[in-house]
């Protein structure tokens, strides 16, 4: 997937955080990596159709709780089922709306899988294929990483952007 199309996912993440959570994401390539001893929480959706791959939102346990609190206005201090559920819904919303952006840019239909969540660093095992673009953002809630992985891209709509 060419970079302008991959950018649609990042742009949507920034817009969704701003409009839905009132949180500004500022890209910061120099942001420190998530420490090895921190629990990494990854909410993701799979993509198939015109592009195969995935969209992933990666945060620490603490940031996940803060995101949930902002999303629902209900405080949470532990990574429980509700926090994970909220994070999954957030990546679902970002992914779904990014596909609308791609459609407007002329990309053929992409189908999203049901969202899911993983704890730890499972994606390290899946780095053997495809292009992975990862951007780290700083925010008032803590660092947020958005990762787009593209295994294959078929056709961009020959009719051009709609």
């Amino acid at each position, binding site marked *: 997937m060419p970079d302008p199309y991959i950018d649609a996912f990042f742009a949507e993440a920034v817009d969704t955080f701003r409009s839905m959570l009132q949180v500004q994401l500022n890209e910061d390539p120099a942001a420190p990596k998530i420490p090895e001893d921190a629990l990494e929480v990854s909410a993701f959706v799979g993509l198939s159709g015109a592009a195969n791959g995935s969209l992933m939102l990666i945060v620490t346990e603490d940031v996940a709780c803060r995101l949930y609190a902002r999303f*629902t206005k209900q405080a949470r201090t532990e990574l429980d089922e509700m926090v994970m559920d909220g994070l999954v819904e957030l990546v679902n919303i970002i992914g*779904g*709306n990014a596909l*609308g952006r791609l459609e407007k840019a002329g990309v053929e239909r992409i189908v*999203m899988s*049901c*969202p899911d969540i993983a704890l730890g660093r499972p994606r390290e095992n899946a780095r053997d294929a495809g292009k992975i673009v990862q951007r780290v953002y700083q925010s008032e809630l803590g660092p947020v990483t958005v990762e787009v992985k593209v295994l294959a891209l078929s056709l961009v709509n020959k009719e051009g952007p709609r």
Partner: protein
Amino acid sequence: MKLLVIDDSRTMRMLIRDAIKGFLSSPADMSEAKEGEEALRMLASGPGLPDLILADWKMSGMDGLAFLKKVRSQESTKTLPVIMISSQSQSTDKAEAMAAGATDYILKPFEAKMLQERIEALFKKT
């Protein structure tokens, strides 16, 4: 007003409940299902039918589109208002849902006020 909300996300069900609480005489007026099959069982077992169904699209188990088609195929439920609330934002998604008989299509994330207005508009029409 009695509402049935179908979404596999507890968070979304909670947010929807909060958004539509003004339409409920009591908390029991809103029923919840996690996916389409469960919702169909609830519709079949009663008591009575809801005035409105709010259904997500992407759910583990029976998804919202399959649920909608099933509802429209059954005599007892074919005219029930069903609003799809989904993050599926491609124009083909909305077209597919409307073609399957959705009464309205609302994109996530939604503002509570907008959801309330769309529900009010729906019942003014009918």
